[in-house]
């Protein structure tokens, strides 16, 4: 009889199990008419403004310290696309799930994660949200339904369908958001995933962030059809375009998509038109596009645009916005400080988090394998840090 380790919880703490009920019937009724998002009030508008700015400043700083050699590997910046993550996350429920690709800082910040463990992750410290083992491409915050960053283009799209399948099995009204790029849309995984999501009525909202380029390849050079959302028709899926530079428009379109997922259990395919201001990654000089093109898009800057909205509505005065900016910059300073003061991961981290320790393994066989020996009986919730206290009155 093999030596048994301490029995494991059979369920992840971070993902509470729900009783299985027969999945609710899907309304075969007429397509729901657009309701849009609830109007954006002052507090929420200010929160979103601050959040978009946080992403912007966080990444500008990351770019800076990358150049100083404090961050390694790939660094893909979301700058210019902030309205998408912030608009979508502002509508998500706490128990919803989302998953995306390697350009993932914005999603995690928009979902409300403490930015300090994120900066620590970029710097490969033990306090990083992935314990320094994931880096820029691999931010995850599972307690908040964040299944984060995939480095394999298109690799996560079928996985999003699986989360939607689990929701249908449980009969809950959660939904799933799956973010991917205009380049990913040509991978076979996109096709397989959208077909089953529509065939089985899965509550998944597929979001292609069309930022015009997959690395150095423009949409025209990669996709036989450039109006990407039209590919949804090949799966009988509701599909539509969305201006990704205006957070208000993003909220309106996605509010409908989430209602379609929660109530009708129907997937939606949204093409969000946007632009990445920076190169694909730090190593990309972006020679494939003109300065003018970049400037043209920067005139539509989503943060500036929400700023104008705040001023128009008298939700804020110019100096309030400046105060938010300096407050955010302060917080980013704190992130770098936190990261730099954090310890490097000790050698044993290398062997942890590979296997789950369960009573079903013959322990004798693996006792000399450090990966098994250091495996833990159940999932670890990442360390929670004291919340940053804003100096701005929302």
């Amino acid at each position, binding site marked *: 009889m*093999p030596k048994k380790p301490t029995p*494991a919880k*059979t369920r*992840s703490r*971070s*993902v*509470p*199990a729900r009783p*299985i009920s*027969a999945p609710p019937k899907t309304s075969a009724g007429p397509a729901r008419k657009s309701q849009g998002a609830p109007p954006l009030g002052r507090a929420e508008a200010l929160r979103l403004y601050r959040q978009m700015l946080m992403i912007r400043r966080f990444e500008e700083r990351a770019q800076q310290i990358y150049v100083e050699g404090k961050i390694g590997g790939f660094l893909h910046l979301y700058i210019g696309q902030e309205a998408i993550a912030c608009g979508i996350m502002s509508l998500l429920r706490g128990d919803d799930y989302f998953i995306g690709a390697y350009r993932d800082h914005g999603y995690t910040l928009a979902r409300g994660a403490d930015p300090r463990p994120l900066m620590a992750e970029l710097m490969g410290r033990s306090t990083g949200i992935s*314990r*320094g*083992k*994931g880096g820029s491409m*691999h931010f*995850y915050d*599972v*307690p908040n339904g964040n299944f*984060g960053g*995939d480095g*394999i283009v298109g*690799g*996560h*799209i*079928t*996985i*999003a*369908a*699986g*989360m*939607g*399948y*689990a*929701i*249908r*099995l449980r009969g809950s009204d959660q939904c799933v958001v799956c973010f991917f790029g205009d380049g990913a849309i040509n991978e*076979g*995984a996109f096709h*397989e*995933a959208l*077909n*089953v999501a529509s*065939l*089985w009525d899965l509550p998944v909202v597929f979001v292609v962030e069309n930022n015009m380029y997959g690395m150095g390849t423009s949409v025209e050079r990669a996709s036989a059809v450039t109006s990407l959302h039209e590919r949804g028709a090949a799966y009988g899926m509701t599909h539509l375009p969305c201006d990704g530079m205006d957070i208000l428009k993003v909220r309106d379109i996605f509010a409908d998509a989430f209602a379609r997922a929660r109530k009708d259990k129907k997937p939606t395919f949204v093409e969000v038109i946007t632009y990445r201001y920076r190169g694909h990654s730090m190593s990309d000089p972006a020679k494939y596009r003109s300065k003018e093109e970049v400037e043209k898009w920067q005139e539509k800057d989503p943060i500036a645009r929400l700023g104008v909205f705040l001023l128009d509505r008298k939700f804020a005065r110019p100096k309030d916005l400046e105060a938010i900016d300096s407050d955010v910059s302060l917080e980013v300073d704190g992130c770098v400080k936190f990261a730099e003061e954090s310890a490097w991961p000790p050698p044993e981290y290398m062997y*942890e*988090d*590979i*296997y*789950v320790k*369960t009573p*079903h*393994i*013959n322990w*004798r*066989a*693996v006792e000399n394998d450090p990966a098994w020996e250091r495996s833990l009986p*159940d*999932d*670890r919730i*990442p360390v929670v840090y004291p919340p940053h206290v804003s100096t701005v009155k929302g």
Partner: protein
Amino acid sequence: MAMITMREALNQAMREEMKRDPNVFLIGEEVGHYQGAYKITQGLVQEFGDWRVRDTPIAEEAIAGVAVGAAWVGMRPIAEMMTFNFALLALDTVLNHAAKYRYMSGGQIRCPMVMRGPSGAAAQVAAQHSQSLESYFAHVPGLIVVMPSTPKDAKGLLKAAIRDDNPVIFMENEVLYNVKGEVPDEDFTIPLGLSEVKRTGHHVTIVAWSRMCHHSLLAADILAKEGIECEVVDPRTIRPLDEAPIFDSVRKTNHCVIVEEAWPQASVGAYISDRVQRECFDYLDAPVMRVNAPDVPMPYSKVLEKLYVPQPEKIVETVKQVLA
């Protein structure tokens, strides 16, 4: 103890675990209304319905991806590959997602899924449908790889695999589906990573799993008539490998033959050989020998197929060689 086929044993294991845990569900091509391409899932859709026994389009990447995504949010999917030859199309999903997200997330994610289906040569289904690709999975940290040889092992190990919280690749052998064996009536599991001595002997140690374990036992019978006693060790789980019983046996017999249905290069058998020569160096009276499929694709013609699959005669020959 009932005498049942491996097909029935696998079917029972899934039915029992689906009854036991509402989070367990099955997904794959023809697993439902067709009752399974090889009838392993017979009757399950009638009992558990279309959502817990999900027929899919022919889309292996989607099958694997749906299983992974569901597992990450707390379900316990069983993804059937109609045959493991087609799992190549899902290999990225398994290797870069199922096996790695726990690590890349610093322990936030777990992937309690089973991918199962037939592997290895069937009867004259030719080069694309007769492959033993277990080495591709055994190579990967984060996975558990099971290859049972008997109905009892199949049932006990599949139940453990379904209950386990790690991603398990469960590779069956089509030719063994009709093989009968005794299976306990009560609920039982067999620990993952536990090898079993299927026959004791003192002249030579034969390490073999799945279908090759049967061929090795047949070879052992033939050799016994000539007074050569083989000890046949069946790892049952090829990752993690339960090495101690293999080493103990070799230290006793001083001779080792590894029998594998797969191609010889960069394979599981090569790794076991490497481990044995190191851990039993001072005990070996002869080099570790191996029996494999020839290093070529599988031919269709039955006369060639018979020469291809390692037969008991070939094992007998090799054992005599290692003892010579």
